[in-house]
């Protein structure tokens, strides 16, 4: 029984500044197939087309060639109800805290739901839910001024602003870039909860392999606007040589195990989770001690 994927991208191509001397091929044939409830990481070197790809999912860009289908809605269809699509897919940009424009936190989060034309009570419920999910207390924080917040808190507000649309798919472009380690870990935990408990499908772009290893159930690696490798973290990090060739790192755990293996120790080099890697290393140490 094959399940209908919630997002399917087929041979998507995109050329910036088409027809000018500054023409730039951002995507030259990318395909994705993502099922409901998955947590997907899209990784790749700078300029590999990740940001262009995720803007297609939200209808900010339409396919120049190829196909994007979100939950049965084909983005090549000119009569597509784009507002419906954007409610289904919440897109969180890089540095989303820049987009906050209201003076009061609650108002800013309520902007999206108000634009959807929801009744005031529903808006209030959604703002409350979104704030609690990202870890901001509704009663305490809703009337605070936005400009006095720290960077990490601002990002939470911006994330809540998108979550308040109650999307089925949440797409994030480098969600933790520029955050301090504590806010980073908090945010990652929240995203994991969202994926596991609220059953929101998550697609995120990242340069940080530790967080990819922590969050992702499946990984797509892009290079020069094409699919390079895809699969579970074990599979992808097992191809360390291919990744290295395209200037993509692996998590520290995989790096260490890889070096141990190169020295002739019997370890599984793609045990990427922290505990597993630790077990592998302990096993090696035990053998040595014997």
């Amino acid at each position: 029984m094959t399940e209908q994927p919630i997002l399917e991208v087929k041979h998507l191509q995109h050329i910036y500044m088409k027809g000018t001397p500054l023409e730039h091929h951002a995507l030259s044939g990318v395909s994705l197939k993502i099922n409901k409830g998955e947590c997907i990481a899209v990784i790749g070197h700078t300029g590999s087309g990740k940001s262009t790809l995720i803007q297609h999912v939200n209808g900010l860009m339409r396919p120049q060639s190829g196909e994007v289908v979100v939950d049965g809605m084909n983005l090549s269809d000119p009569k597509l109800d784009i507002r419906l699509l954007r409610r289904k897919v919440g897109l969180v940009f890089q540095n989303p805290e820049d987009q906050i424009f209201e003076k009061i936190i609650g108002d800013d989060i309520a902007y999206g739901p108000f634009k959807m034309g929801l009744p005031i009570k529903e808006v209030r419920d959604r703002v409350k839910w979104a704030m609690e999910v990202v870890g901001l207390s509704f009663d305490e924080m809703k009337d605070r001024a936005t400009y006095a917040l720290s960077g990490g808190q601002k990002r939470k507000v911006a994330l809540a602003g998108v979550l308040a649309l109650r999307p089925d798919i949440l797409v994030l472009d480098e969600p933790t870039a520029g955050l301090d380690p504590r806010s980073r870990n908090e945010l990652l935990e929240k995203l994991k909860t969202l994926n596991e408990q609220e059953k929101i499908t998550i697609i995120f772009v990242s340069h940080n392999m530790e967080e990819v290893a922590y969050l992702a159930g499946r990984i797509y690696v892009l290079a020069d606007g094409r699919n390079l490798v895809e699969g579970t973290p074990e599979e992808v990090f097992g191809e360390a040589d291919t990744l290295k060739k395209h200037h993509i790192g692996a998590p520290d755990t995989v790096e260490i195990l890889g070096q141990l293996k190169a020295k002739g120790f019997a370890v599984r080099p793609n045990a990427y989770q922290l505990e597993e890697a630790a077990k592998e290393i302990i096993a090696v140490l035990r053998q040595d001690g014997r």
Partner: protein
Amino acid sequence: MKKIAGFEFELTRNITIGQYVPTGSIIHRMDPRIKLASFTLLVISMAVCATYGGNLLALVLSCLLFYVSRIPISYGLSGVKPAIPFILILAILQLLFYSEVASGGKVLLNYGFIHITTDSIRLVVVSALRFVEIIFLSSVLTLSTSTTQITHGIESLLRPLRTVKFPVHEFALIITIALRFVPTFALEMEKMMKAQASRGAEFGTGAWWRIVQRTKDVFPIIIPLFNVAMSRAEDLVLAMESRCYVPGSQRSVSKKYKAYRTDYAALIFCIVFAIVLLAFPFPY
């Protein structure tokens, strides 16, 4: 959103100011001071020339400049496109209400307050041509010259004004910064529009008479854009000061421009061309 979307947010695509298209042509390699002086001469002569013949010649020259600089003429045309409504409105106004200024020539139509003479038609056609010529010229100039070169050119051309206490350097700096940040803010605005659009914002969809509503619609872009501009300005100030920029102090330039024989030849050509446009008795 009626038209097939996909380009609605690509603002940078439509901005040709501050965009430099490096093709390495003769025009690109010209000394910026001489280039600016020559282009200024050409623009002034085109703005004054009022004959059909002269303007046709000028139009041919401005098209030729695209060819020589190896920049696709579509760039120039995309600069003309947004000006078309203005050209049209101007043409109609001139045709209807300028009969007193251009009252010479044969009377073609005389109905009520409308007097159309051969002279007023000439005025209409010539001003439309001028528009196109000058847009073409300035496009070639900005597309073939980097902003640093333009400001260096302006600075050294304006240097004589220093004797009357005109702040030449500061003026040039302001222009550099302004030009430099046009594409940056366009990108920033593009990003903001996309971010707010994915939160359900809509721009320019309300009826035009609901001015308050339409103004409110752009708040989610304008306010963050101001914030970003302010923090960029702060960063810029810090970066400049950390590199020892002191306003008003004597500065040297890292790159000295040197005019070659071809530059002088181009300048002489432009002078001759300007004289021809202004003084040659074109039959039409």
